[in-house]
């Protein structure tokens, strides 16, 4: 005997329609006389009744009645708690979890390198099983290893460069589970945007959603990160960014030597790469302004000193220093000067950025491909990322390198920033301005 027609229908229907994975997944197996006793359809039904979904990964049916059958089933649920509840219930009906082992770690034998067969992280929330309990991996970051402190019951992402000899590093895949970020729901302000990159999205709605997300992030007490390229200054958007900083919407700023230099050039000469931002035309000997600005700041002892002494009285850098924004300027090989605050050791810069992304709830990546990708690599998948660029390739690249949660807006940055500053400035009903 097999399942009754209705039960068979239920099972096959759910296999198809509910195969779409939900948030958290674990595997169970069930063996024995599970077909004729209807235990298999019952287990599948219970998963659905308890709000989960399933995928049958393997199923072997016994030939004779006395032959046991076997099924390996992926169980999906929205949250780890819901998954535990479902699996706890299924155990009562004869199912057993497939991965009951603890995570395995071996001490690093070479400094700044992982042991062979190390587990390579993603930016998704990850848990490891230690002494039978699932614990969160801290400082989630893609392309790292996982270090383990068995006694303290802690696990964290560790970049290759920071591996010290003897540090226990997780190897293999046993005892590791990944909790994928839930796809945005229809009701979420981000829901409508999807992940596609297009210049033909309704900009006003997109913009309002970005503004709402920034407000929500601040309301949750999390930081907003702005990663900006020099085009912000070229396009004449400095003042909009300065306003966002002044009004307390940005807590962290990542940039290179260029954004800071152009911003300071504008503050000192009113030009960006020699082009007047008021007239839109190149000024005489304007091309020298760029280097002269850097030289002035270097002579003053750095950006902070130039602002403190009253030499610089406007612009993005000025507002950052006034508002105590966490500013990380990372250098590159083509930097002029560079400005004294620019970190020229890229490993040091990476670590500073790594520290600064902790507590970030929303990242706005504007007109900079390499800094955006670098930042994307450091961010866990649950941080919302909006990438604004005139070039769709920047957004695509970011997503291709694993920061799949990115929402792209292909647009000129100036109108975007102008509208965003205006949107955030206008008070929302029932809310006060940010602290």
């Amino acid at each position, binding site marked *: *005997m097999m399942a*009754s027609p209705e*039960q068979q229908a239920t099972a096959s229907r759910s296999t198809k329609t509910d195969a779409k994975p939900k948030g958290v997944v674990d595997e169970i197996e069930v*063996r*024995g*006389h599970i077909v*004729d*006793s*209807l*235990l298999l*359809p*019952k287990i599948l039904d219970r998963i659905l009744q308890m709000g989960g979904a399933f995928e049958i990964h393997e199923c072997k049916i016994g030939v004779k*009645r*006395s032959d*046991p059958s076997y099924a390996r089933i992926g169980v999906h649920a929205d949250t780890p708690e819901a998954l535990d509840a479902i699996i706890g219930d299924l155990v*009562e*009906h*004869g199912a*057993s979890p497939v991965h009951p082992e603890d995570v395995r770690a071996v001490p690093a034998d070479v400094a700044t390198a992982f042991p062979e067969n190390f587990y390579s992280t993603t930016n998704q929330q990850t848990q490891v099983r230690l002494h039978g309990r699932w614990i969160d991996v801290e400082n989630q970051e893609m392309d790292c290893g996982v270090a383990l402190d068995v006694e303290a019951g802690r696990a964290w992402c560790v970049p290759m460069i920071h591996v010290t000899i003897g540090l226990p590093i997780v190897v293999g895949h046993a005892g590791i589970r990944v909790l994928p970020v839930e796809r945005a729901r229809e009701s979420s302000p981000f829901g409508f945007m999807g992940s596609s990159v297009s210049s033909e999205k309704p900009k006003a709605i997109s913009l309002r959603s970005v503004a709402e997300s920034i407000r929500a992030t601040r309301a949750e007490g999390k930081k907003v990160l702005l990663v900006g390229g020099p085009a912000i200054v070229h396009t004449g958007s400095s003042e909009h960014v300065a306003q966002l900083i002044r009004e307390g919407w940005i807590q962290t700023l990542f940039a290179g030597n260029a954004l800071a230099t152009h911003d300071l050039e504008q503050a000192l000469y009113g030009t960006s790469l020699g082009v007047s931002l008021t007239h839109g035309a190149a000024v005489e000997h304007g091309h020298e302004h760029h280097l002269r600005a850097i030289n002035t700041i270097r002579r003053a002892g750095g950006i902070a000193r130039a602002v403190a002494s009253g030499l610089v009285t406007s612009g993005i850098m000025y507002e950052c220093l006034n508002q105590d924004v966490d500013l990380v300027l990372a250098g590159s090989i083509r930097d002029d000067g560079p400005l004294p605050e620019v970190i020229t050791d890229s490993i040091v810069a990476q670590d500073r950025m790594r520290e600064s992304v902790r507590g970030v709830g929303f990242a706005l990546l504007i007109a900079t491909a390499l800094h955006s990708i670098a930042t994307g690599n450091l961010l866990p998948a649950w941080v919302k990322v909006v990438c604004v660029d005139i070039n769709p390739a920047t957004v695509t690249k970011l997503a291709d390198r694993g920061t799949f949660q990115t929402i792209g807006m292909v647009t000129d940055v100036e109108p975007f920033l102008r509208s965003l500053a205006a949107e955030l400035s206008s008070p929302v009903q029932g809310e006060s301005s940010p602290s």
Partner: protein
Amino acid sequence: MTDSQKPRILMCPADYFGIEYEINPWMSVQKGTDPERSSAQWKALHQTLVDLGVEIDLMEPVKGLPDLVFTANAGLVYHDLFIPSRFRYKVRQGETPRFEEWARSRGFRIVELPAGENFEGAGDALFCGDALFAGYRFRSDVQSHQWIGERLGVEVLPMELIDPRFYHLDTCFCPLAPGVAVYYPGAFDEYGRSVILDRIPTLIEVRAEEAVFFSCNAVVVGSTVVLNQGAPKLTADLERLGYQTRALDLSEFIKSGGSAKCLTLRIDGEEAANWKSAATPS
């Protein structure tokens, strides 16, 4: 074991029977039982079985083990194998060494279940034809049934019990012969009911008002069914199928959640079990 062709049943006198704890909805320490009445009822059952030609194997009762009288929960007998119970509740766990001792003394090979799995013997595992019907949730774990199925090489059909009053399978399901059984549908979920309906062609449904008299908890000897009184409809249904019935007063044992079947363990194979007529496996 003896070579007798007589039906053989294990019983344990009710000398120390009483209600000393509460592990099912029938038990009430406050109400308790009447030792004289329970002793008389047990003796009446014993005599009825003897009259039916059953050879009774008696176990020594033990003070402090009031439920030792329910020998159906001793374990599962299969040819010369005996799988001792692993009781869920600590208060009954002291019975296992006694039952093991008995089985060893009668020449059974003892097969131990893996540690940590609950299994309450013939209370939750009954053969009907070739398949072992098994109850789980309240007392036995489904894993233990699956393990037994693999160990014995028989098909096991675990069925979830959903009504705490019918906490063992033998309180709501009674195989009479291969393909013939009595059951109370309300004790099973729809899957369990489907399994029974699909696998047993001749079924007698016990009504709810008679099921509470433990009507399913009956001893089958040949074509005679020994059961607690208070089930006239079931009696009529059984008679229609050609069975004779012996209704006894077992009310004192029902106060503890047991009746005729619970007080007996068939050692030579239930009437409905095909294995009793099959050759002993190697």
